[in-house]
């Protein structure tokens, strides 16, 4: 009986030791991969930041204005103005329908 208890407890200690070691190794692996991911994230964040700056730079009003001026022939873009704004009720749909026919 006593022998059985010894065998059982020793096996138990070995198994738990094995399990603990296994978990430890797994945790270290995960932590390594997290570090790697964090480093990647940091790099991606930096890239994202550069792209955001570039996007803001490309969309700066001065450049858009110049592009609109350059492509005036094909696009005919003009600054928005109050006389371009009319209420829907002021549109003569009937006349448009007639002209489309």
């Amino acid at each position, binding site marked *: 009986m006593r022998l059985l208890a010894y065998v059982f407890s020793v096996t138990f200690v070995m198994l738990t030791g094995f399990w603990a070691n296994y978990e430890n190794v797994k945790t270290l692996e995960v932590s390594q991969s997290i570090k790697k991911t*964090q480093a990647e994230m940091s790099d991606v964040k930096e890239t994202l930041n550069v792209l955001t700056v570039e996007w803001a730079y490309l969309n700066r009003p001065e450049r858009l204005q110049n592009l609109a001026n350059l492509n005036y022939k094909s696009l005919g873009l003009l600054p928005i103005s109050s006389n371009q704004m009319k209420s829907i009720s002021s549109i003569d749909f009937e006349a448009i329908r007639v002209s489309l026919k």
Partner: protein
Amino acid sequence: MVRIPLRPLAQILYFRGKGLDPDIVERHNISKRHSSIEDQNWQRSESRLFFMGLLFLIGFSLICVRMTVLASSQTAEPFSEFSSVKAITQRSNIIDRNGNILATNLFTNALYANPKIILQPNRAVKELVRIFPELSESRLLTELTSDKSFLWLKKKISPEQQQAVHDIGEPGLLFGHRELRVYPNGSLASHILGGAGFNNESAVGADIVGRAGVEASFDQFLRDPSRHGEPLQLSIDLSIQAATERVLAGGMDLLGAKGASSIVMDVKTGEVISMVSLPNFDLNRRPGVLKSGDPSNSPLFNRAVQGVYELGSTFKTFTAAKALDLELVNPETVIDFERKMIISGVTVRDEHYAGPSLTVADIISKSSNVGTAILASKVGIENQKSFLESLGLFHPTTLEMTEARNIKPLIPAKWTDMSMITISYGYGLSVSPLHLAVAYSSLVNGGNKVEPTILKKTTESLGSRVISETTSHQIRKILRSVVRDGTATLGEVEGYSVGGKTGTAEKQKIGAAGYDDDRVVSTFASFFPSNDPRYVLVVSFDEPSYRIEKESKRTAGWTAAPVAAEIIRRIAPLLNLWPTPEDNETVQLK
């Protein structure tokens, strides 16, 4: 150890004498000895148990403490400090009211040299000059062959330049990590943002510090790592700022003015939607501070905030507002006057005499000095002073910019009758265009003081009452008539019912007393739409002048008003304002 004998002779003899069995003595003594041994064992095991218990208690307490610590600690991403190293050192971005980036950071490198470990100085210098043509070859050679161990070469270099330096293959050329403040919009909103520079420079890094504007006034806020890079949102609207700057620059060019400024302000919240001061500068290449001469000649000078001028007839509105608020007159009250009059002992004259009698509304609409002076004499010194003070014209504005907090209006040391009369039409009291925008906002928004702010707000923030709701309504009507058929007809914008007041103030002569009629500051303080004002626009030109048929035009009605109208035409649709016909105006719709 002294053992007590189990069969002591004296006791044996004593028992034998009595005829008893001496073995009893032995057994008695054996049991006595056993019981004492047992007692000892008992005590020993008791202390062992106590000791063990103590050990277990300590062990369990440690586990308990650890578990409590774990349970009560904040859950955090493991190694989060690793990923945020760069984010923490970063200065927060500055964004406009719609989230567009106004200022942000980029990682870059600084180039420095350690002349002691440079192998081929001649080759290094040649190659460096090829990459950076602005470096002086001879000076660089002297420095690189000196016995220094540290030498800055370039503060900011691009990745391409860094690669080129790497390619030289010189071990003495080294790179330092740098964060660079970048303004993607270049010179746009340059006076608001102010710009930034480096402090505490070292090979490992440098602090970015704000030099002026919002960058300086919110320096601590932008650098605060506990905010985790949360951006600073301004009340500025990028597209409106761009449109205003463009129109104003065109106007300044056309009018040949020395400088120009404009402010668009929300009349209910005091938010500055756009603020322009021309000439401006590129934030990414901030010019140095002017060492000598007039600081207002530097592009760094923010005319809208720092430019303190006598703003002329725009002040007539304040005189009329107080007279109406005190119910001394109403807009229809007719006032008789002459071209030249002595009022409260001061001689006042009108350049363009529109008399002999005008209503109060017409005095403002036709901008009569004499008429305004009469109104001022009715209002009196004390009322005038307290009213102008309540509009915030005596103190620096509360705009969150270092420049604004340091600019105090120039008020007369002693407020005499002379001051009362001249100030009533805008001479003798110098304020910034920002002060004027705040005062006009307070007058037209229903009569409540507003505090200017550069930060985005979501709620109205009306302060104490300065004039009654009725007076505010009357003033709006009078200022509307100025644009409809007064001195500012060129300020009219169809559909937006602009109201406003022009002001052309002669500048004081340089190095002499009196005023110079060739050099003026022309200002147009306007608001729109006049039936329910939403925005105030102040446009001001420094020394404008242009000629129509050999006649020089300097007055605000010819200079600031048409430019303001063009600005409104451009920005009103961007401000989501729908053009509406006025009650008595019909708009032809097809």
